[in-house]
């Protein structure tokens, strides 16, 4: 209290301003900041995706075991990476929001989750499309597939929970607790499912046992991964701008 009084009475130049990056935690400031970043990331995503697809489909050689069908990894692997990474980032924002009470953090979690769920669906879908010609089955109860499916359920639970409350603050808090509980649970789920699948059947075809990739394949995959990053940034920032505006309108009403 006294601290505020003294700083309030000081002349303006003597007040120490908050560091610039910390001012970004304020929703109105971040709204403008995000608006400047969105076109850049959107353009970057387009360029990187075009380059990655060109490298992946035109330059990279045909795999001697799997033929042309392997090319689906240029979409599948980056999507699977992003699906897990976005969950971690959303949970990080949820933790920040719970600890520091920042108003922006829950909005970031909300903005990231739909994109994470989308990437999970893409990873599952492309995995099924790859599995049918290669393994001979659309779906195998393999550890990776099963844990990815449960990750999708965790995303859906989060999206369902935050949209269930009329009071958005309650939805923010409940969603944050759920995301953090999910982060504690994700490694346990992964290992339980892994041991479960090795218990029931011997090791089937494993992705990590595939022969080493050539440079062009790796380059295509990395380009696509970067494209997915840029796409996620663009979409999440655009979505968070909408959420900030929506929340401001709600607060103006009440």
């Amino acid at each position, binding site marked *: 209290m006294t601290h505020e009084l003294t700083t309030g009475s000081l002349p303006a130049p003597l007040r120490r301003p908050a560091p610039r990056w910390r001012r970004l935690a304020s929703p109105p400031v971040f709204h403008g900041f995000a608006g400047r970043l969105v076109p850049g990331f959107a353009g970057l995503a387009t360029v990187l995706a075009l380059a990655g697809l060109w490298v992946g489909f035109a330059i990279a050689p045909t795999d001697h075991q799997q033929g042309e069908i392997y090319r689906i990894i240029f979409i599948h692997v980056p999507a699977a990476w992003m699906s897990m990474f976005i969950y971690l980032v959303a949970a990080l924002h949820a933790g920040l929001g719970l600890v520091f009470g920042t108003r922006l953090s829950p909005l970031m979690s909300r903005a990231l989750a739909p994109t994470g769920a989308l990437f999970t669906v893409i990873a599952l879908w492309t995995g099924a499309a790859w599995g049918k010609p290669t393994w001979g089955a659309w779906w195998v109860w393999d550890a990776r597939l099963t844990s990815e499916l449960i990750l999708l359920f965790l995303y859906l639970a989060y999206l369902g929970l935050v949209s269930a409350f009329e009071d958005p603050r309650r939805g923010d808090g409940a969603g944050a607790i759920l995301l953090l*509980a999910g982060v504690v649970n994700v490694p346990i789920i992964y290992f339980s499912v892994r041991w479960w699948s090795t218990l029931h059947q011997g090791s089937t075809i494993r992705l990590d046992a595939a022969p080493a990739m050539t440079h062009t394949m790796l380059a295509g995959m990395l380009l696509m991964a970067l494209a997915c990053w840029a796409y996620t940034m663009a979409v999440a920032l655009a979505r968070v701008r909408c959420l900030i505006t929506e929340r401001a309108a709600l607060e103006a009403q009440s």
Partner: protein
Amino acid sequence: MLIAVFMRELLLALRRPTDALAALLFFVLVCSLFPLAIGPDAALLRAIGPGVVWVSALLAVLISLQRLFEPELADGGLEQWLLSPQPLTALVAAKVAAHWCIACLPLVLAAPLLALQYGLGGETVGLLVAALLLGTPTLVLLGALGAALTLGVRGHVLLALVMLPMSVPPLVFGCAAVSAGQQGLPAGASLSLLGACLALAAFLCPWASAAALRLALE
């Protein structure tokens, strides 16, 4: 106060035994439906028995938890919990412990009967009971977190959506313990992992549930 909360739950359950026994009846019913759907093939039933009993137990726990905190929210008891000198975490733990005694203990006691119906042998039945004794408290703790998070939401599908993905590890380890016993393999590792899940859940879930309840009462 903690003992009072615990005893009050037990007393309420004694006064209204149908509520408490609903989970048990649901468990027995679901277990009995599977042979009707699959057919009376003894070998097949023996193979799927542990999984059926575990999934039925999970669903019965889910059903029993749907109104865990709602009576307290309606009669203002939750506000008194917040005001009381006892920590909210401890009160939630007492409530969860009482709920386990009311809803899950009968279920664990009835499980050997169902296991015999599925043709499981004597030692396997013992393993099933041990696995259920270690696993159902974890399920109740996770479900209590789900119930606290979804408190006041209309419709109960959300609780299933929140609780079921998180219940995968106890389900996997519990079924693995029983299956290992059936195949004559040591089941100690799975039981230890179930115990580890329980320890972690008992440490974190009441705390997270208390945070969720505080949020619901804001």
